[in-house]
């Protein structure tokens, strides 16, 4: 394809020797400029993370005096990682893992069930539910912080693991993604299995869900990332320090209730450790993230 497009312009220009050379020069300049711009932007995007890593191995004084340097003067974890035990970091980490695990499992299962029902099953009220799901996606999340807290308190779920997990176990965007996927795959396989006498749930579990693997992976990743990074909801859903997740825990470090000095190596080390799981998932499943970004785009 690219060879076919490259040849035609060259032929008519052949009689004029100066023209192509000027064109070539311009192309080289443009290529150099393109890479220059890209490299500058890449630095702007990557360097902050390098600084984050480097500062996690510096002393507070070193980090403050040489914030730009990507190499610590002396490598030490004395003022960063070693101090994390003192702030109950492992507890936050465990809480984040537990919450993200259950939220992800719940979301994938419930959202797929609902998405399948909305795409394939005929039942009274389907249109209404469909409309409601789309409407719910349009509600801005931040305006619901107070009301969610109120309901949690009324249901005696405030400051419990249940309260932090169950309300997040279903989300409208996930239902929407799954529904769109099920609509897009052919119905014949299901029909065949149905004729064989499979019940609706068995059909869903052993025929449909395996076919939906790419969508399920996308949803798993989005759910994990979403619940791992969730901050504002956990701010209002719990109050006791024992239920701190990484986000609310590190946030309490930022508000600086502890110790003297700016504690930057400690804070940056904590931020770094909370980024690593997302980074691993991101680099392994990158293409699913990208698919998710364009799927999430449908929201609007």
């Amino acid at each position, binding site marked *: 394809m*690219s060879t076919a*497009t490259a040849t035609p*312009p060259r032929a008519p220009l052949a009689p004029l020797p100066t023209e192509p050379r000027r064109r070539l020069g311009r192309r080289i300049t443009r290529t150099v400029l*393109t890479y220059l711009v*890209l490299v500058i*932007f*890449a630095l702007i*995007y*990557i360097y902050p993370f390098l600084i984050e890593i480097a500062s996690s191995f510096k002393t507070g004084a070193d980090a403050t005096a040489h*914030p*730009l340097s990507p190499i610590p003067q002396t490598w030490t974890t004395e003022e960063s990682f070693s101090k994390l035990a003192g702030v109950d970091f492992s507890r936050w980490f465990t809480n984040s893992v537990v919450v993200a695990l259950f939220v992800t499992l719940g979301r994938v299962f*419930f*959202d797929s*069930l*609902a998405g399948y*029902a909305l795409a394939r*099953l*005929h*039942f009274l*009220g389907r249109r209404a539910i*469909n409309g409601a799901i789309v409407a*719910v996606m349009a*509600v*801005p999340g*931040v*305006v*619901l*912080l*107070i*009301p969610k*807290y*109120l309901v949690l308190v*009324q249901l005696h779920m405030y400051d419990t693991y249940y309260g932090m997990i*169950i309300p997040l*176990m*279903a989300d409208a965007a996930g239902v929407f993604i799954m529904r*769109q996927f099920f609509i897009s795959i052919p119905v014949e396989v299901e029909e065949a299995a149905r004729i064989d006498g499979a019940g*609706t749930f068995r059909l*869903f579990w052993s025929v449909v869900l395996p076919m939906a693997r790419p969508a399920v992976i996308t949803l798993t990743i989005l759910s994990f990332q979403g619940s*791992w*990074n969730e901050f504002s909801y956990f701010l*209002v859903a719990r109050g006791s320090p024992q239920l701190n997740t990484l*986000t609310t825990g*590190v946030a309490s470090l*930022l508000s600086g209730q502890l110790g003297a000095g700016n504690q930057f190596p400690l804070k*940056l080390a904590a*931020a*770094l450790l*909370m*980024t690593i799981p*997302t*980074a691993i998932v991101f680099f392994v499943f*990158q293409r699913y*993230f990208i698919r998710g*970004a*364009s*799927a999430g*785009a*449908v929201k*609007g």
Partner: protein
Amino acid sequence: MSTKSGIRGREGLAGWLFIAPVVIILGLFLLLPILVAIWVSVSDWGGKGSPLGAGYVGATNYEALLVKPGLAQLNLATSLRNNLYYVILVVPIQTVLALFLATILNARRLKGKGFFRTAFYFPSVTSSVAIVTVFLFMFTGAGVVNQILGWVGIHGPNWFNDPRGVLRLALSELNLVNPDSPPGWLTNHGFLGLAWWDWLSGPSVAMCALIILAVWTTGGTFMLMFLAALQDVPDDVLEAATVDGATRWQIFRSVTLPALRPTLFLVITLGLIGTWQVFDQIYLTGGGGPGKTTLTPAYLSYSAAFNDFKWGQGAAIAFILFAIIVVMTIIQRLVMRERRTLPRRRRFPVSGGAR
């Protein structure tokens, strides 16, 4: 398709069983909260006992915020001003940046495309808490950013602690206004209890740091959306334009941009919705400081309820914010519709099945 009534009946039951968990969870933790909040916003609930037992006070909470001069009104006006500047700057800059990066990355013979795309997108999947931590470190008085500014001889400000409005700074730098004796016609009149002089201060230096943070973080997501849309621009049209002797800029203006219109619309809408909700960053950088210049309605709503125990007012602010977001989206929809000159050739691939 089988149409036996027995199967249909069973299917109906299965349908409801399948959808039940989602309906219950969303109903209980999304719909019910909205209803409770509507009630709380017209009640005098003080945070103790059941909100259902609180007294009905009519529009008092809304009046205190919108009509009656006082601290509540002043805070709301200040937060609206701050967020307005935030939106006006973040949405266009991040949209242009995303489009710019996507256009560069879409070049055919580019090496390392995947690497650059990953680099630009990674901040979008990172926790806001982690990002703010890094930014707090980079934007200290003697921090990374100011050291880099120092290379070109600029003495950087103390970012997150600097409440000065940049518009006012620029005007006084040009000797157009004297910040110590502002013109009376600006200080004596105002809107929502805030003098025009303060409305026109521009975003504070601290807010500018948050604006940079937002652009840096979310640019990547929108870049991906543009990148996906750019791949849908038909090659033959681009080639025809090249053969006709159109310059790159002409091609971009009259072929690429019209084809991207639906995505552009989407990116701006998502940008507007997102920027009016800014909360995490505000909470994490000290809750609206310095001098309330980074206070936003979303944070004000939270702190009115959770810090000042004015639950009614907090809920009322949330609904005012909700209304603002709805109005902004409608306005943007109208503006974009009027400007549409070319017929939409391609719709966003999945949106066709939305209904």
